Structure formats: structure tokens, C-alpha cells
């Protein structure tokens, strides 16, 4: 049976995950502004791939958040 994490270890993990989430959110913000610019300029090719990329980013973030909750309940 695995030993539960100490609070110090949990803090380290949460900080690590927080850093990754911040980077992904900044990436999504850039993606949204670039896509809006392309949409307004009539460039349609990038719209669907950008949406897929953004959804993948969100899924990754949601997965990391659910890991934090699962870790706390371990």
C-alpha cells in the first residue's frame, strides 16, 4: 500500500501543477486572440485546428486538477 503524501509533498505537487496550468492558460489565451484575428481577416483554415488544440489544453488542465483532488483524498 502506498503511503499518503505529506503536506509538504502535496504543496510541491500543487505548485508544480499550478505552474503547468498557468503556462497552458497563457497558451490558450494566445491561441484565442490569434484565432479571432484570423477569423476577422477571413482566414478559415486555422479555426478548427485551433479549437481542437484549445480543447486538448482544457482537457489537460482538467486532468491535472482532478489529480490534485484525487491526491488529497488518497
Amino acid at each position, binding site marked *: 500500500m502506498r503511503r499518503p503524501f505529506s503536506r509538504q509533498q*502535496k*504543496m510541491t505537487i*500543487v505548485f508544480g*501543477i499550478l505552474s503547468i496550468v498557468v503556462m497552458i492558460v497563457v497558451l490558450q489565451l494566445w491561441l484565442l486572440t490569434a*484565432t479571432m484575428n484570423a477569423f*476577422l481577416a477571413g482566414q478559415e483554415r486555422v479555426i478548427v485546428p485551433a*479549437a481542437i488544440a*484549445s480543447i486538448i489544453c*482544457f482537457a489537460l488542465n482538467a486532468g*491535472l486538477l482532478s489529480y490534485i483532488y484525487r491526491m488529497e483524498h488518497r
Partner: protein
Amino acid sequence: MKSTPDDQLSVPPDGRPYHDQPQWRNDFPIDWPQDELVARRDFTKFLVLTSFAFAVGQLWIVFENFFRKRKGQLPVMRIARADAIPVGGSLVFDYPAKHDICILVRTGPQHYVAFNQKCTHLSCAVVPQVAQKRFFCPCHNGAFDLESGIPIAGPPRRPLERILLEIRDGDLYATGREVRA
């Protein structure tokens, strides 16, 4: 939430362990280290909600693009008599829908240009300044070339949306629009 002895600095008033306590007591802990952990976790949760909002925004663009494509061919609409506008004069008209304000300028005896009047920066109305050969946006001092609609000064980066024109039997018609990068 389970707590180990080295985790727990204070004891809840009823003496029971934290995992038997109501949710609110776990969400608003007394111990500083635990409070820090909960604050970081909740900040991460907030960022994930922001991430969700961005993903929804991306999907909204996909839907807008889908409906824009479905509209298909724009209508052909009569604007005015071609000779009713003097050289250097302008006329405001709606195209293709009622509140899509466009501006037509007669730049020469046989030469007309028309653009959507919305500035591509923050959608203020541009005004033609024929003597300076430009459209001017008074909100942020943006300027566009009168002939091409290409931005030449100020914050706008995209050209004005061009309205395609035709002259039929002396009447000016709008036949479509050209969105450009």
C-alpha cells in the same frame, strides 16, 4: 480529507479527525500550512475554469464561422445613381444587412470605392478625408488608404472590409464584400 498527525496542527472543536468534519471546515482550514494548500488548489481550479472559458470561446468562433459560411452569396443591392454623388463626395449606406454601415466614395469621374465603415481596430466609424487620400478613425487616430483600405497609420492592423461595386445602367450596385487579411 484524511489527515496524518504531522499534517494536523490544530484540533477541530468536536475533537473528531478532519475527514469526519463537514466540507466547509476543510475548505476554510485553521492551520496556516493547510490554508496555503487550499488557496493554491482553489487558484488552480479558477485557472482551469478560465481555461474552460477559452475553449468555449474557440468553439464559439467555429460556430460563427459555420454560420458565416452558410449565409453564402450576398445579395446584389442598389445603392444610388452613380452621377448623384459628386467627385470627392461620399455616401453612407447599409450592406448587406440593415445595420452593416458602409461608406461609398467617388474618388474620380469614373472611379468609386466602398468599404465597411467599421474601423478594424475597435469598430469606430471611419470618415473619408479625400484631400488627404485616406479614411480617418477619430477614436485612436487610425488611418486607411482611400483607394485600397489598407491601414497606413495608427493601431489598426487589418484593412477595411471592401464592398464590391458594379455600375449597371448608371446605377451603383453593391454585389459582395471582400474580407482581407
